């Protein structure tokens, strides 16, 4: 049996080898696949870890940004609360406009302003209640690109009765973020006072700066404007207004009335504009320019019939040498405004030149030669809200105002009696941001030697709504 055993053993061994060889080979290849899979999984884990770290970093960054935005919002709201004289934006105050209405895409808002004065003058004039006005403002908006705006003025006159005027009425087409086309009657953009500051509740003093009342600064015009604002970099801004309008017409004394006329009497349009630059949000620097042509009249419109007066001034009756002529009227100016915290500083300068021309100057009179007229007006004004230095009841609602304005006649015969230095001091009590009681002292020193210096004490109540 031994040889058989040996043979059986040998057979078993060889069979084992034969069977084991491929299994061993199979195990080696399985390990390799396993290793590859493990390496792949490790790589995936590393990638996931990296992604997790990135997400955590992004979350931290987002949190930081959110905290910064919240802090910025808190700071802005605090600034607003302080700037609004301590009245929180969420607290109630008298306002709300007179009426709001919405129908689909159309919104209507009725707001406006009103006020009245009391004046005491030491020149022998009676003390008087004066200049009571009510100015409703109508706003109609279609979607977010069309706005109709109009203001009426009801105002008491020196005599009996009430004056009613259309201050402005315009259709504003918002072309894009940077341009709006305005068509209609509008407040003159020449200078700043008339367009932005003349409502009683906005004007820091009671009177207007001398000359900024249609004497040098135009009041209104009828025509077109292209206007808007363009951001420059992060914090700077440029604003512009370009206008074309019917322009002024000659009235009594040969004075061009710088107001919007419903028709152009000489087919020469007035053009002008204003540009402002804001190097920082609290500072505005800019200038205005205006060119128009006024035509001399052969008779003053609305005056007595020439045939009835016997002083006929129809063209055919006027000697050739005194036929009415045209004159250029040019205005230019500069302005600077700084509104920093509770301090408000303003400066404006305007210069006007009208060439010599021939026109009727007096009702019923004949055309006469009117000399060149050069006039300039300027003012500097400072206002400070005491809320910036105290929280004391009543005192914190006071605002101190000082203004110096001047009207100079450099050449010509018009406005000679109006040329003056006007010094104004005032205290305003703000019952609310849009309701104010003002008390002013004003000294008017006239250039004309025959005119006595005036001391005026004035009070005013004004509200915007």
């Amino acid at each position, binding site marked *: 049996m031994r040889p058989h055993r040996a043979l059986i053993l040998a057979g078993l061994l060889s069979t084992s080898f034969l069977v084991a060889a491929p299994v061993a080979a199979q195990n080696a290849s399985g390990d390799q696949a396993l290793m590859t899979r493990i390496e792949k999984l490790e790589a995936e884990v590393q990638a996931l870890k990296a992604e997790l770290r990135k997400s955590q970093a992004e979350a931290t960054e987002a949190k930081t940004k959110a905290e910064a935005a919240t802090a910025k919002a808190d700071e802005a709201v605090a600034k607003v609360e302080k700037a*609004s004289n301590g009245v929180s*934006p969420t607290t109630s105050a008298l306002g709300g406009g007179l009426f709001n209405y919405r129908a689909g895409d159309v919104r209507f808002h009725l707001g406006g302003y009103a006020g009245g004065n009391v004046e005491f003058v030491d020149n022998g004039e009676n003390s008087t209640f004066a200049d009571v006005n009510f100015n409703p403002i109508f706003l109609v908006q279609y979607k977010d*690109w069309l706005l109709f705006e109009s203001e009426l003025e009801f105002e008491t006159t020196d005599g009996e009765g009430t004056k009613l005027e259309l201050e402005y009425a315009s259709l504003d087409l918002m072309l894009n973020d940077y341009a709006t086309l305005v068509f209609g009657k509008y407040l003159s953009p020449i200078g700043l006072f008339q367009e932005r500051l003349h409502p009683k509740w906005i004007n820091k003093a009671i009177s207007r700066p001398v000359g900024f009342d249609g004497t040098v600064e135009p009041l209104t015009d009828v025509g077109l404007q292209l206007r808007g604002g363009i951001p420059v970099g992060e914090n700077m801004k440029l604003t512009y207004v370009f206008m074309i309008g019917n322009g002024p017409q000659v009235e009594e004394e040969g004075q061009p009335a710088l107001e919007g006329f419903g028709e152009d009497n000489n087919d020469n*349009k007035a053009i002008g504009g204003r540009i402002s630059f804001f190097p920082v949000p609290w500072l*505005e620097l800019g200038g205005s320019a205006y060119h128009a*042509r006024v035509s001399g009249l052969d008779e003053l419109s609305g005056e007595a019939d020439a045939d009835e007066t016997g002083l006929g001034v129809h063209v055919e009756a006027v000697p050739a040498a005194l036929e009415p002529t045209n004159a250029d009227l040019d205005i230019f100016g500069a302005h600077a405004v700084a509104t920093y915290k509770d301090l408000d500083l303003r400066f404006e300068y305007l210069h006007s030149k009208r060439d010599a021309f021939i026109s009727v100057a007096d009702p019923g009179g004949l055309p006469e030669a009117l000399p060149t007229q050069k006039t300039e007006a300027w003012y500097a004004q400072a206002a400070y809200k005491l809320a910036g230095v105290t929280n004391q009841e009543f005192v914190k609602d006071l605002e101190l105002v000082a203004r110096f304005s001047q009207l100079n006649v450099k050449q010509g015969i018009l406005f000679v009696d109006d040329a003056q230095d006007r010094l104004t001091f005032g205290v305003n009590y703000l019952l609310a941001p849009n309701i104010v009681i003002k008390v002013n002292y004003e000294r008017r020193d006239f250039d004309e030697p025959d005119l006595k210096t005036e001391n005026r004490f004035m009070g005013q109540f004004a509200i915007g709504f």
Partner: protein
Amino acid sequence: MSKLAWKTILASAALGGIMIAAPAMAGGTNASAAQPDPGLIAKGAKLWADNCGRCHNLRPASNFSDDGWEVVVSHMRVRANLPGEDAKAIKAFLKNSN
């Protein structure tokens, strides 16, 4: 100014206005009050303080309703020459705070 010159300016302004306005009008929105983001509100608060306070005392947001502010700020956008984006941010702040 000569007749031809102003007529040219007028025609150019009108033509330019129509060309620029056409896409704006076509894409005009209903000025609907979509929920503004906090960043826009913060920007609006700062712009409100910077711009509105330049001429007059700041009116509290509670003075007007959303519809009231929509129209009043549009009015002031024209008067104060505000860029459209600034007016939008100011509206967002006021409507969110009233």
